[in-house]
């Protein structure tokens, strides 16, 4: 899965600085600041409705930012069109492992490769994906809508990697997957980090997420209520009592 051209990945840092946003007249996020450092796994934890998805949408230009700034490698990307943010090297594995159901597996990957115009590099990347995810190679001519949940999540990840990103955003990847596949997804996340990708992982699954992540933030009611290394977050008993329920 390493970059076929051997270029170093994850040199740029994602910064969200004092972002306030929401839908219609209600603010969902209040003055949220987070950072995803290059080459590390940063997680964002929080219950349903804490604002995790809204934060992701704001970063990706899907929900307009009202106040504050989003920057990638020092360059402001606040309210940039989503496809331009993707072109800067930010790939997303969307919530629910969405794929294009009426396209084949191969075509799904090709959509991820639309940004790349060099055919040889595209072919190499496709080959790398099939090497990393042999199941996808077996099923390359099958419609994505007929894949199992686990296979869809592989496809969703591979499609993101086809854009040759530096940063991969995972939006609740464990949602709706069987425990076996959840473990597999977390293994892939760790592998991607080893290959030099920067990861932003949004999750509800506290224990496994803190296990794999380097840094973390906890969102509650649209605010950052805790931040630190995942070790410090994992050891903070008060935090667990207040936000995650006692473990």
């Amino acid at each position, binding site marked *: 899965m390493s970059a076929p051209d051997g270029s170093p990945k994850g040199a740029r840092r994602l910064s969200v600085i004092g972002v306030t946003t929401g839908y219609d007249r209600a603010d969902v996020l209040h003055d949220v600041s987070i950072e995803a450092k290059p080459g590390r796994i940063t997680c964002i934890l929080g219950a349903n409705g804490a604002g995790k998805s809204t934060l992701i949408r704001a970063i*990706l230009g*899907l929900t307009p930012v009202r106040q504050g700034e989003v920057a990638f490698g020092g360059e402001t990307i606040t309210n940039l*069109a*989503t*496809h331009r943010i*993707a*072109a800067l090297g930010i*790939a*997303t594995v*969307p919530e629910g492992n*969405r*794929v*294009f*159901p*009426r*396209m084949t597996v191969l*075509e799904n990957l*090709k*959509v*991820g490769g*639309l*940004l790349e115009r060099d055919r040889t590099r595209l072919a190499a990347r496709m080959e790398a994906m099939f090497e990393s995810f042999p199941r996808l190679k077996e099923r390359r001519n099958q419609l994505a809508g007929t894949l199992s949940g686990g296979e869809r999540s592989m496809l969703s990840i591979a*499609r*993101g990697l*086809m*854009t040759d990103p530096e940063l991969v955003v995972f939006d609740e990847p464990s949602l709706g997957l069987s425990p076996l596949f959840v473990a597999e997804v977390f293994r892939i996340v760790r592998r991607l980090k080893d290959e030099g990708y920067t990861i932003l992982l949004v999750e509800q699954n506290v224990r496994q997420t803190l296990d794999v992540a380097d840094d973390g933030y906890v969102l509650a009611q649209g605010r950052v209520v805790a931040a630190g290394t995942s070790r410090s977050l994992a050891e903070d008993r008060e935090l667990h009592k207040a936000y995650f329920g006692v473990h």
Partner: protein
Amino acid sequence: MDPGLLAQYLFNGLMLGTIYAIVAVGFSLFFGVLDVIKFSHGDVVAVGAFSAFGAAGLTAALVALPGPLALAVGLVAALGAGAVSGVVIGRVLVLPLKNAPAVNVLLATLMAGTVLREAIRLAVPNGGNPKPFPALLPDGVLAAGSFSVGIDSVIILVGGLAVVLATHLVITRTRLGLAIRAVAQDDEVAQLAGVNFTKTVLGTFALGSMLAGLAGLMLGLYYREINFNMGILLGIIGFACAVVGGLGSLIGPILGGFLFAGIQTLATVVLPFTSAYKDVVAFAVIIALIGLFPTGLIAEKSSERV
């Protein structure tokens, strides 16, 4: 019935079916990417026909072009005018209303169609009357027994079928086609993968409207006469074909086009005394089919929606 005459009917049916299919595909493409009904589509057909008519007339007045070149001028004018009207309507009317209720888009494009229609009527000298369309295709007749058909008709039919095939290839084999299908299936995920939404939607509008412009040229060449309001009936027929075939799919509207033309032809052959009612019969059958197959003959689930 005389087999030669039957062949003649069949040929005419195929020809009309091709034209209907070309118009219907546009409706389906627009619905696919944006879930909108663009009701100005029929009038873009008229824009294409009159642009070809005007361009051919103007160049003929200036220089005497050989046949194929004169046809090329008409073709470029029809495709260009179609694409421009599609992109302008998409950019100015449809995209800004993206988050508004679908009825608003329907109404706005319905009115845009009226604007196009009236603009043609007022801008063209004596525009309220039918205009004779120049014969840009070679004369001559192919005959076999009692079956005879003009070479021009054969060219139109073959060209039209080639365009239907080419459209299919654009959608299934090109980068634009891939982007169009991605936006149609999940526009957010498409954007996250780097697809430019606005560009793709406008590309779709250009493509679909070029087809409409081409249909206008084909109708002009076939009937040798065009009319400023020719788009009204054609728009409704195209829309009906798209709905009955399966709005949003690519094969559906093509089938719908041939089905509609087939019913019209059948009505003419079987009930010669009612041939004036062929549209009535065809629409009645379409209404019945829509009642029986509410999601179209090609159900979205099993078919390849664009």
